[in-house]
């Protein structure tokens, strides 16, 4: 092949005169017999395909229901919005200072929030100190969802399939299948990830640590770190990620985070309800190491959320961690 520079190749391609690619190509002679399918076999094939694949137009029994569902959906949506709109019309005006929602509860949170919790972010002080029980329940919602997804999607090495689930994959087959779709040493992805992943994780850590001083907190920071881990996984593959994040790490982090949260809050609630002093110092407001238990709880929640987000992604992709 003659060496041609880029510009002349481009001109040739534009004018369709010649191309280096086509010049030396030939078509292979097809010496083999063509597979002749009989009409009966063809019909049988179509029936088998129809059995496996769902074709809406084919199901006559559903056609009348579809129409009814559409009409019913529109009527129901209009009726429901009408009821809700009538309600909204009677609600207090948005933004008024004299709304029922702006009462003594809110006033105390703002006035005494700083001195009672030590956090300059009033919302963080509220969810991790005044109403910490709700946040405890909420982290366990995330945990139980991760468990449920694990039950459904994790492929285990055990051979016994008690219910004949027709899941034909074992974990090794799933890994092989996943490797087909994984980008193999994609240059752009890896270079960009090498630049971005440290920044993302650092930013996530910053958001977690500053949860009590500025907008942020465990949940948002944890989601950011989770996103960073997912980007790393996509760029570098499962082998590299499993060097520092595998099933054992995941289980340990989840257990320690949740158990620490529950036990620390149990101690705080016990002391508070019984009038004892919990000896947790509130520190100087505005410093990182302040606000009592809020900083450790933020870290615990952040770790749990990051691991859960990564686990969701890994389960969906490969069926295992």
């Amino acid at each position, binding site marked *: 092949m003659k060496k041609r520079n880029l510009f002349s190749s481009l001109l040739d391609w534009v004018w369709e005169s010649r191309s280096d690619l086509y010049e030396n190509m030939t078509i292979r002679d097809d010496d083999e017999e063509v597979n002749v399918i009989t009409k009966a076999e063809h019909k049988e094939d179509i029936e088998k395909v129809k059995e496996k694949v769902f074709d809406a137009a084919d199901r006559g029994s559903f056609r009348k229901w579809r129409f009814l569902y559409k009409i019913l*959906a529109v009527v129901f949506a209009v009726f429901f919005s009408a009821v809700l*709109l009538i309600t909204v019309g009677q609600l207090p005006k948005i933004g008024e*200072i004299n709304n029922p929602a702006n009462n003594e509860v*809110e006033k105390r949170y703002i006035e005494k929030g700083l001195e009672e919790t030590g956090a300059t*972010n*009033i919302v963080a002080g509220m969810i991790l100190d005044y109403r910490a029980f709700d946040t405890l329940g909420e982290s366990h919602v995330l945990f139980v969802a991760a468990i449920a997804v694990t039950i459904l999607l994790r492929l285990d090495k055990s051979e016994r399939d008690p219910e004949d689930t027709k899941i034909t994959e074992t974990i090794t087959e799933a890994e092989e299948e996943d490797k087909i779709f994984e980008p193999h040493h994609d240059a752009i992805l890896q270079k960009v990830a090498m630049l971005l992943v440290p920044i993302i994780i650092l930013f996530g850590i910053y958001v977690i640590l500053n949860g009590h001083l500025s907008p942020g907190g465990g949940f948002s920071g944890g989601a950011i770190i989770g996103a960073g881990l997912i980007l790393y996984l996509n760029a570098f593959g499962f082998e590299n990620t499993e060097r520092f994040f595998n099933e054992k790490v995941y289980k340990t982090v989840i257990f320690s985070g949740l158990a620490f949260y529950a036990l620390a809050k149990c101690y705080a609630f016990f002391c508070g309800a019984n009038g004892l002093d919990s000896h947790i110092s509130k520190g100087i407001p505005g410093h990182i190491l302040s606000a009592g238990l809020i900083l450790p709880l933020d870290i615990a929640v952040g770790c749990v959320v990051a691991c859960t987000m990564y686990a969701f992604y890994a389960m969906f992709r490969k069926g295992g961690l």
Partner: protein
Amino acid sequence: MNTNLLNNYAEAVSMIIFAIGFTNLLLHKNLIKKIIGLNIMDTAVYLFLALKGYIKGHVAPIIIDGVVEPEAYINPIPSGLVLTGIVVSVSVTALMLSLTIRLYKRYHTLDLDEISLRLKKEGL
């Protein structure tokens, strides 16, 4: 009728979105679209809650320069409720999606009626 509908137009929009999401979750045939309806419904609730806290002329509840008068900040309670709601929504979406994956792997369809029909045929 003394109605605040025009003043509360943002709340009205959020309620319409809620109704659309609710109807989607209830009556749509496709499983993925039901999950999208669920997310629409939850987003409408967050919008509604976020509007609850707003007070005209006040700023976000991060204490700046040691100012602790309630006249300076908006109501922080609805923000905490939205935080909880978002986490719950993410969890149930993940669960519903994994259920959809399992059903699809087995029946190769996303239509709930079709799956019931095939189950009846299997006669479990």
